[in-house]
């Protein structure tokens, strides 16, 4: 059987994977209706894929398995033909396997899994955990997640990645949140014989990542500037260096403004006419003055754009 393939756009250009926030209603429950609207919004911009439960989608904060299942089922019904992948990184192997299998049963095109949260593990334990997830969904693409947060202390060394990719043919790529030059170059050489790993960088830095040979990006700001990101993707694909540079600078400025904050993204969503709810405890909404400054600077950076409304 042909092993699963990495998520790539049909035109052969770089991949742009949207990473949505997770909407909550007033009591802090997942607002499935708002989530469905948000996912349809992302899907209509035709990203290469949609990634659920990344850190922009409060992946770590979704401790309740029921919530994770609800998000997957909502995506199944909302994204249409756009592939979606599910981050199944948890602290327990059994939970990660359950979630991966549930995701695949509900149509996920890929799962993403990183070292277990919170634990410091030996390499054989890491291999066991990641390998168990890959083995549990043998016909589905698996992306390893090299996280940037301290909640995940495991280390996906290039050697470990190569070994996993060699032992589990459905390991098609690596999602890297650390974005260190040296690691990115090393990981590009880590593919097993006859294979190739697709490296996707968390963030919106498509120009340098494409230069390094990475396959694309997982974007948090995609929800608030999807057209700009699509234009950047097209510019990189066509080799329009000047156009790509200008668009990259715009994306970098917005990414810096948002600073990886789901709360900032939610505030901008609402500002643009797409209400995706508020923070839930223990997070709190941005203070009024911080929010006003954020939105003022966003408007300044995006002057002349048409990134408003639900479309």
């Amino acid at each position, binding site marked *: 059987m042909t092993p699963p393939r990495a998520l790539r756009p049909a035109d052969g250009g770089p991949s742009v994977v949207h990473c949505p926030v997770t909407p909550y209603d007033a009591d802090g429950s997942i607002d499935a209706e708002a989530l469905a609207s948000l996912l349809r919004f992302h899907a209509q911009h035709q990203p290469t894929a949609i990634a659920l439960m990344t850190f922009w989608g409060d992946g770590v904060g979704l401790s309740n398995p029921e919530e994770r299942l609800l998000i997957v089922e909502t995506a199944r019904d909302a994204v249409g033909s756009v592939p979606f992948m599910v981050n199944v990184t948890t602290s327990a192997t059994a939970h990660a396997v359950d979630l991966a299998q549930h995701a695949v049963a509900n149509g996920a095109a890929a799962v993403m899994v990183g070292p277990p949260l919170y634990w410091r593990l030996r390499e054989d334990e890491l291999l066991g955990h990641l390998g168990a997830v890959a083995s549990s969904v043998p016909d589905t693409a698996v992306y390893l997640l090299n996280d940037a947060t301290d909640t995940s202390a495991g280390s996906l060394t290039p050697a470990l990645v190569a070994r996993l990719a060699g032992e589990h043919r459905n390991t098609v790529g690596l999602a890297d949140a650390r974005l*260190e*030059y040296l690691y*990115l170059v*090393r990981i590009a050489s880590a593919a097993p014989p006859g294979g190739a790993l697709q490296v996707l960088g968390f963030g919106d830095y498509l120009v*340098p990542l494409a230069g390094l040979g990475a396959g694309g990006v997982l974007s948090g700001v995609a929800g608030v500037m999807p057209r700009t990101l699509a234009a950047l993707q097209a510019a990189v694909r066509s080799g329009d260096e000047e156009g790509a540079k200008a668009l990259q600078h715009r994306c970098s400025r917005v990414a*810096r403004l948002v600073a990886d904050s789901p709360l900032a993204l939610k505030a901008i969503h609402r500002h643009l006419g797409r209400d995706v709810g508020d923070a839930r405890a223990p997070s709190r909404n941005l203070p009024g003055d911080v929010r006003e400054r954020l939105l003022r600077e966003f408007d300044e950076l995006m002057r002349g754009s048409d990134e408003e409304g639900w479309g």
Partner: protein
Amino acid sequence: MSTGTVWLMPDGISANLLTPLLPDGDIDEGTLRRFVEFHVGIEAVTSLAININLSESHNMTLEERERAAEIIVDQAAGRVGTIVTVSALTMRDAIRLTRHATEIGADAIMSVPPYDVVLDHQTLLEFYRTLADATHLSLIGYHIPSWQSGAGLHPDLVVDLVQAAPNFVGIKDASFQVRYQCEVTAAITDIRPDFSVTSSLEWLVATIGLGTRAANSAVVSLAPNLVSGIVDATAVRDWDGAREHTRRFVELWSAIYPHFPASLKVVSEEMGRPLGPMREPFRPMPPSIREQLVATVDRLGLRDTEPVGWGELG
């Protein structure tokens, strides 16, 4: 003091120079001049970075740093740019080194924020403004957050400095982070399009799309053809070629970095260009590590693809 036309960081490679030492630890002036000639002869090298950390500047007296700078600037004789690092523990020493660099006719000074302390935005701004005001030379900031407890040249600071000091022309980025390079470049490009954000090591393949045209390199002293290959391939957008050169570079760098900077001298000696010992606290390289470095040189075939000995370049 900053007036008139400012020197801008040229396209190409800024070579990070080691300091050749005699067996007794004194600066080996003859070899240093030869070392400068070697780099001037490399087409991709457009400037020389003097007295940076790998030059063992931390282990040198102020007088020795001044003497090394004098030799290098004199030997370069305007054929390539000269950038004197003035990083120091005290403002007074940094100003002294700045004035000396100005007197000997260097093109630029470069400095990290003061070592070992975390300073707020305004204090850092004043620190760099003081340096900029002390010279008509160009000023380059050195962003190496691992030396400042995670701080360094935040993009907001870079923007404020550009607006405050016309001779602040660039930063050397040693964060090794894609994100920082993107964010600082995006922050500055509309304000000062000719501002230079150079990456340490040979990451041109990633940064050239952001508008970067220069990079800093220590490896160019060891493998000038490899480094030049990256420069040439990126210049003509031969991405596959540039990535292959970069992959080879990373293989070499991965062997060197754990024992940096002493490993640079070991490999230089292997390439027929001995630069003498390191000063204590560095000790002679253990044979087992030397063997690993030599094995890497052999595996990459550097003796077949790179200049061995001083040759015509030195």
